[in-house]
């Protein structure tokens, strides 16, 4: 294996390590510089395929690396100055976690998957507690304890898979699985692994941590959790599942379809009753994991499912990013996360209200935004692969979800303002808001730009 294989990670690791010894502002700029350099390096290596031992860098991993690095950069730019000044390690923690994610999406072996998953998670546990208040500490502890449990379940599943195939490298596992007969050990292993990753992506039966952690953690960290961390879990889940594609007796597609239907329905129904916007977005994220799992469930049956799924992940990440970044802007000014306190925001600060409305509209899936096309692609793909019942459930859910997204928009634009407290946005936060909302519109109006790139992505087995 050549050193170029992990060059972006080496640059990031150097930036993060040096930034530990610098003052807060310098650490921030070094982090931004390191992430930008890594983005350039990853973009330059688009199309190259390097595989060696534990890692494989193909278009799939390069593309996901761009998602992780991009959202880490946006989150770092959008972070409140007082958080950065108080916590000097914050940029380093974000970067260490991003290194874990980039390695995770390039992992080709159960061992490297586990190691990079821990490298992703451990900084996130710490970051959830950076709010330094009671809720934040609760979020951190809850996330850490449940995360460790999920890792244990995941390792247990990996042990089964290793025990019954005798391999840890994914290509060899794929070979062994395609030859294997009906095997309860492999079934148990795969489903335990789905459980472990289900925790990381907050899929339904493993979602209980998400609302509490999203609410308690600083909003910057919540943004990172709901975009990059979720995308990382999905990337590795897709890669692992593609290794289990062959056998007929192992119908994980149906299991994922059921998880997806449950996730959409319960996520959306519970989101209606939320009064705190971060909790509402957490449940909306659980529902969106359900929509994404429709694409993952049809991976084996539909050729376009891979690019549809990744398109949805990008669209969701951008829309969620726009919504959460506006929550940072609004909440730090009005000092509350309650939806009721957002009343009349649009009267005195229309631009921020416009961005959050755009994010919510895209999450609801209204035309001209990324969310609409993402849903369209995923639903047509699922229809082609014979999951029509799931599409019906999903469409009903889309209607339900429109209710609570539009409720927030209604509160902001039509209710009487409680306090006249203009929302001021710092230059960098404004830049991040601009990038994410421009991304939503570009993906919604000219999807071919990103679809062309997604067409070049394929999984090796």
């Amino acid at each position, binding site marked *: 294996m050549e050193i170029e294989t992990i060059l972006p990670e080496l640059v990031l690791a150097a930036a993060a*390590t040096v930034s*530990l*010894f610098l003052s807060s502002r310098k650490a921030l700029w070094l982090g931004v510089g390191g992430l930008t350099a890594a983005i350039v390096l990853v973009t330059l290596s688009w199309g190259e395929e390097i595989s060696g031992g534990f890692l494989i860098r193909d278009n799939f991993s390069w593309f996901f690396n761009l998602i992780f690095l991009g959202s880490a950069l946006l989150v770092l730019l959008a972070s409140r100055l007082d958080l950065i000044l108080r916590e000097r390690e914050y940029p380093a923690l974000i970067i260490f976690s991003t290194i874990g994610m980039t390695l995770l999406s390039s992992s080709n072996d159960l061992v490297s998957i586990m190691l990079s998953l821990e490298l992703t998670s451990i900084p996130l546990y710490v970051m959830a507690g950076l709010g330094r208040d009671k809720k934040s500490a609760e979020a951190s502890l809850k996330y850490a304890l449940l995360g460790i449990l999920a890792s244990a379940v995941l390792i247990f599943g990996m042990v089964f898979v290793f025990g019954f195939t005798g391999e840890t490298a994914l290509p060899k596992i794929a070979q062994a699985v395609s030859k294997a*007969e*009906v*095997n*309860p050990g492999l079934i148990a292993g795969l489903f335990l692994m789905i459980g472990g990753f289900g925790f990381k992506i907050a899929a339904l039966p493993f979602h209980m941590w998400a609302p509490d952690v999203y609410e308690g953690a600083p909003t910057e960290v919540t943004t990172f959790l709901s975009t990059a961390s979720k995308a990382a879990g999905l990337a590795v889940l897709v890669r692992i599942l593609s290794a289990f594609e062959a056998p007929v007796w192992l119908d994980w597609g149906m299991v994922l379809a059921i998880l997806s239907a449950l996730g959409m329905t319960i996520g959306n129904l519970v989101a209606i009753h939320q009064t705190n916007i971060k909790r509402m977005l957490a449940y909306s994220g659980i529902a969106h994991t359900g929509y994404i799992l429709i694409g993952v469930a049809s991976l084996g049956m539909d050729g376009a499912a891979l690019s549809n799924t990744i398109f949805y992940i990008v669209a969701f990440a951008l829309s969620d990013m726009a919504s959460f970044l506006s929550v940072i802007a609004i909440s730090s000014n009005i000092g509350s996360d309650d939806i009721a306190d957002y009343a009349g925001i649009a009267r005195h600060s229309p631009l921020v209200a416009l961005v959050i409305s755009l994010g919510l509209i895209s999450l609801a899936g209204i035309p001209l935004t990324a969310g609409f096309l993402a849903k369209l692609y995923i639903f047509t793909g699922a229809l082609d692969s014979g999951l029509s019942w799931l599409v019906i459930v999903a469409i009903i859910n889309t209607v339900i979800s429109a209710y609570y997204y539009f409720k927030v928009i209604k509160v902001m634009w039509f209710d009487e303002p409680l306090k006249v407290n203009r929302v001021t946005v710092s230059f960098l936060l404004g830049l991040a808001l601009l990038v994410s909302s421009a991304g939503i519109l570009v993906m919604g109006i000219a999807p071919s730009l990103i679809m062309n790139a997604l067409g070049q992505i394929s999984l090796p087995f």
Partner: protein
Amino acid sequence: MLSTYTQLGLFLLVVLLLAGLVLALPVILRPTGISPKKPNPLKGEPFECGMETIGPTWIRFNFHYYFFALIFLAIDVSTIFLYLWAIQAEEFGKNGILAISIFFIPIVIGYAYAWYKGALQWK
């Protein structure tokens, strides 16, 4: 294929039932007089679990203890790896030195960071 696992499952069931039975035996046999309940202070002692404690056990101690413990642990474990490398150092040659320094540099950086943050000062 499945039948091989049925035996395994039955075996597991039998083991669990047996273990449960043995644990419940004293309670089940109490009415018969075979296992009477006669508690005394000597029986209540933690058998072979170290010294008997003196004074209250819930005392407060300095939080910095954990920093020292963690740093000690990191360095201590890395020494084991260093030792393994050291006894074969000549055979591993240049590549060995490279590998061990890649392994050791992050630990040294972590140690330097802890020092820089003042974690090694007893306050």
